[in-house]
């Protein structure tokens, strides 16, 4: 009994101390700043005028993101496949693992810096973040639910009545409000505090080590034509020479039916690779070393292979062992601890 009391007291104490330490975060929550563009980032693509991020809208979105009622049998939430500690990917799963243990065909991409995204999904087809959540909710291997049912389930819960009212003025639960709230949460998933960012913003005297700097130079020469700074993607769809997958996933072609789009996939960001393995649209490489081996030696001449990967008639990007070490060191500067630990973005 008394031991228990002491434990509680101890934890309370800890909590107080922790609160003190966290006080900047606490005040930040209090004066919610909405969406703020990191100074080293370009102008976002998302139309914030039609959906300004507010504190209550964001909070509603966060609740929905972690709400298992979005799936048919109330077991799977968005957060099941987009896990914060894995930079909002499904770490350890090559392809997504959804409802009733059904497997998808693609690797869960991070929910990260989506305000700068022009197109969604590995193979495109969705061009507006507000319309994106319809896909997982209605996909058989993901949440296998229909939107009408989801909205009906949400309407029955007093918690949401309150949250919708706070966010939008009335209790009405409509498709538009539901989508906009989810977008508000996802838009706030900004990763912009890696070492790289701090070096670029010249914060607190942050500098690259010699290896990181050498890796940065190599990266700019060999990778940055597709993985463009500071988002580390140009948002385009390209074929980076992966061997055809057993299911022959043709990427962008499925959405456009254009010959020139066969085997093109969205260039992914390279931020937070430490947390997001496995890699590529089908999660075929378990490690970064595997990816570098691919670029160095395994690039295949498949339909629409990007010209950057067959320059001078040679396939791939030549990388020496030292190159690999320095590039790896540079890529590690893109890991953002603050992002994966940001309490604002966690399930509450």
């Amino acid at each position, binding site marked *: 009994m008394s031991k228990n009391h002491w434990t509680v007291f101890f934890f309370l104490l800890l909590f107080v101390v922790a609160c003190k330490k966290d006080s900047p975060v606490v005040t930040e929550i209090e004066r919610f700043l909405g969406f703020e563009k990191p100074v080293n980032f370009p102008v976002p693509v998302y139309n914030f005028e039609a959906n300004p991020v507010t504190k209550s809208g964001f909070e509603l979105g966060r609740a929905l993101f972690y709400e298992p009622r979005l799936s048919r049998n109330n077991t799977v939430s968005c957060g099941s496949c987009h896990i914060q500690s894995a930079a909002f990917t499904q770490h350890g799963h090559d392809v997504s693992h959804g409802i009733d243990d059904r497997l998808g065909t693609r690797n869960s991409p991070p929910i990260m810096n989506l305000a700068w995204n022009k*197109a969604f999904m590995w193979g495109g*087809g969705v*061009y507006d973040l*507000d319309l994106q959540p319809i896909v997982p909710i209605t996909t058989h291997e993901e949440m296998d639910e*229909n*939107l009408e*049912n989801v909205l009906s389930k949400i309407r029955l819960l007093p918690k949401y009545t309150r949250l919708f009212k706070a966010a939008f003025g009335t209790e009405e639960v409509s498709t*538009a409000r539901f989508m906009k709230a989810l977008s508000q949460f996802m838009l706030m998933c900004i990763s912009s505090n890696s070492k790289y960012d701090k070096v670029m913003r010249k914060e607190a005297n942050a500098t690259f080590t010699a290896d990181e700097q050498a890796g940065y130079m190599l990266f700019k020469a060999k990778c940055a034509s597709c993985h463009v700074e500071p988002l580390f993607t140009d948002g385009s769809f390209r074929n980076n020479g992966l061997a055809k997958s057993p299911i022959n996933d043709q990427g962008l072609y499925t959405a456009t039916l254009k010959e020139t789009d066969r085997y093109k996939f969205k260039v992914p960001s390279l931020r937070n690779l430490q947390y997001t393995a496995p890699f590529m649209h089908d999660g075929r490489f378990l490690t970064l070393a595997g990816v570098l081996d691919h670029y160095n030696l395994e690039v295949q001449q498949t339909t629409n292979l990007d010209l950057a990967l067959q320059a001078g008639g040679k396939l791939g990007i030549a990388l020496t062992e030292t190159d690999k070490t320095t590039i790896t060191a540079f890529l590690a500067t893109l890991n953002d601890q603050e992002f994966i630990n940001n309490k604002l973005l966690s399930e509450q």
Partner: protein
Amino acid sequence: MIKNIKLTYLFIFYMGTLLISGCSKKEDPTPEFAASNLAPFSVEFDNIVGERTFSLNNSTSLYTNAAGEKFSISMLQYFISNIKVTTADGKEYAVPQNSSYFLIKGADKATRFAKVKVPEGDYTKLTFTLGVDSLRSTMGIDHRTGILDPASGGDHESGGMYWGWNAGYIFFKFEGNSAVVSDDINGDPTGKKQFKYHIGGFGGYSAPTINNIKVITVDLTTAGVAKVRKDRQSNVHMFVNVMKVFNGTNGFKIAEHPNVMFSDYSVNIAKNLTELFKHDHTEN
């Protein structure tokens, strides 16, 4: 009963003729065309199948297409949008977009009318879109309400018309069963002998992709000019012959194409869709 109605119509018609001949033409003048002088107008989409009426789940009395394949229909739904009317002297009126989207459902007779308001006038031409125009197909979630709400209609089995993965609408959804459908993956692996035609494709957001939006223009002069007046309901009665899906210019066999959704072949079927609509008469 029917006979009586027919007689009544005859009588009204007779009286009407009397009236018209009795009075000078000035009694029903074509009103001055003014965009603000709105009156009710409707287009009726009356589904038929060749020479027969349309019925769902007609498994006891199958339809037969030109290739001799027997089939039943389990689902028919299509979007009609962007209604526009034109007078003989070329005055045009386009119904404001927000009130110009209709989902015609074979299973719900009440949905067969596209009811709008247009200025009083005599119209010789009707134009509408089969599908959802590309502008609306790229609009934000705020502009997708009512039948355009991606949540409306539920999932694809229960009649949803939104393609999440392709951010567009299915314009024309036609499903049914036929013994000619194979049981393998090219047909219906569940063994239910189902065929499915989900025709959509608005041309793409950023880069051009297949565009199956069809704008249909109907000349009303032969089967009846629409005389739109405030004191009545002018209704253009169209027959929509879904048999033309199979028997149109790009005729095809169900056995050869039992499932057509977002694929190059859908373009051929979409061409047939323009041949579905025939103006039968106008009720003024």
